[in-house]
């Protein structure tokens, strides 16, 4: 595992020395800031209207639920655009520049290489996500009572969703030495997965329930409500492991005899 740790450190350092890294961080902060502001304003509007006339069920809407829940849900959608930028470099760039050849001849196992690459992507995701938690403080400032279940569940869901997307992105990055192709393939697949929920609506029910279960957002939606379902958690864990081992196979394929 020492090898993975060394790789993680290297990737992490070089990520923030490249414009892609800085721009991704910058873009994510701006987008999440806009989302948050919109939901805060939306909540303000809603409470104004509620003061004028009582809606049915208005009492069920909580501050954390409305702002943070919807905010985290939307951050999930933002991952569709973010993940291809995070993962495209990972293996593709090492392949293109030829540094992968060095890595292959250092005393590292293929598993260590893929694990190190994946962990560094995860760390980058954590780092992007961390600042957005400061919005919790804003919510706390607005009103004392914070529903921690929603924040914890939403954060966990976001990280799981991101981790499974990154695993898929890492896989596509291992297939090519072109970052653009890697990000394009990742983005297209993520979009297809996103649209899967609607697409299956046109299929016969036998298929729609089976395929519908593969849609990541169907599994993500409950997390920002503060509901952590083991089925959803295991769905994400399975997809992480699935693409991780596909990547490992690709890396190992140079050892195949034929």
């Amino acid at each position, binding site marked *: 595992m020492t090898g993975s740790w060394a790789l993680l450190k290297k990737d992490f350092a070089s990520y923030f020395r*490249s414009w892609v890294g800085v721009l991704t961080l910058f873009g994510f902060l701006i987008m999440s800031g806009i989302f948050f502001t919109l939901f805060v304003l939306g909540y303000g509007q809603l409470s104004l209207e509620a003061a004028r006339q009582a809606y049915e069920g208005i009492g069920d809407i909580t501050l954390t639920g409305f702002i943070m829940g919807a905010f985290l849900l939307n951050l999930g959608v933002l991952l569709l655009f973010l993940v291809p930028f995070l993962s495209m470099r990972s293996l593709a760039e090492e392949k293109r520049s030829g540094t992968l050849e060095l890595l292959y*001849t250092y*005393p*590292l196992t293929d598993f260590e290489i893929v694990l190190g690459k994946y962990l560094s992507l995860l760390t980058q995701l954590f780092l992007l996500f961390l600042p957005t938690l400061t919005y919790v403080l804003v919510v706390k400032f607005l009103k004392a009572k914070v529903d921690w279940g929603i924040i914890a569940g939403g954060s966990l869901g976001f990280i799981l969703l991101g981790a499974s997307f990154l695993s898929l992105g890492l896989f596509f990055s291992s297939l090519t030495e072109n970052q653009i192709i890697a990000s394009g393939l990742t983005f297209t697949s993520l979009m297809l997965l996103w649209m899967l929920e609607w697409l299956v609506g046109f299929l016969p029910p036998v298929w729609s329930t089976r395929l519908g279960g593969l849609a990541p957002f169907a599994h993500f939606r409950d997390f920002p409500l503060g509901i952590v379902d083991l089925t959803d958690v295991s769905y994400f864990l399975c997809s992480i492991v699935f693409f991780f081992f596909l990547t490992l196979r690709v890396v190992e394929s140079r050892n195949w005899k034929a």
Partner: protein
Amino acid sequence: MISVENVSKDYGRQRALYNISFEVKRGEVLGLLGPNGAGKTTMIRILTGFFPPTEGKVRLDGKDFSKSPARIKSRIGYLPETVSLYPDFRVDEFLRWVAEVKRIPRKRRKADVEEKMACCGVEAVQRRLISHLSKGYLQRVGLAQALIGDPDVLVLDEPTNGLDPKQIIEIRELIQELGRERTLILSTHILPEVSRVCERVLILNQGRIVAQGTPADLDRGLRDRQEILVRVAGGAAASLDHALRSIPEVESIEKQASEDLTATYLVRMLPGEDLRPEIARRVVEAGFSLLELKTKSLSLEDIFLKLVLTEETTEAV
């Protein structure tokens, strides 16, 4: 120390190496020579554990490469053909990272990195970003990373490729120095490099070993006829021709150059005993003054071309 046993390598349906076997002894400097596309890089990649051969085995001190790849890789230092290192790292930073990846204990890393930087002459640029280095320095940093961890075997793929003449000389000197204490395998398509640096040469062509031995061995084995250069002064050309042709072994005489009073002839004859005394005597008897008489030895370049070209003609038939 390294033994390569019946190694073949396929890329899909294309076979890149055919049944290669050779040994490298401890402390030896072995040159892999061959035209581009001969399979040098494939052979090198097998030797560094980049990928395993399709058939056959490679052993390091009797241990099979495929059994414990990570342990074997830590005993081999590798300089790839195109040295590409992480551009956004500083030289010292990168080398320290390499030391970590190569599992040098934390305490020894700093000393090791400093030693290798001194050895390869990159101390002056250690604070510079790798992307700002010249090709020559890049090659040196590449050598330094290969040396970190003091591997038993050093494998260099075309180490002087793309350098300017001054850098080539510097890198070659460095390699010679390194070859003194280490087992070194070096691939190249540049011939003088081999004869200058290597103790033993292996010539590859189209995935096969076409010749191996010391540069001198190859020279001897390939010389299927003697060639002697004769420089004379005075006399009539026809009489010289006549005088030398009477030696039964002489096959042909060719005039190579003539200046005012001197002329140079290339005399080709069948292999056998040294006929220089005989030639000298005849030249003088024919009324010439003998200015120079020397055996023309084939340079490695001639041998190389000869091998590679014969291979191709046989293949064409």
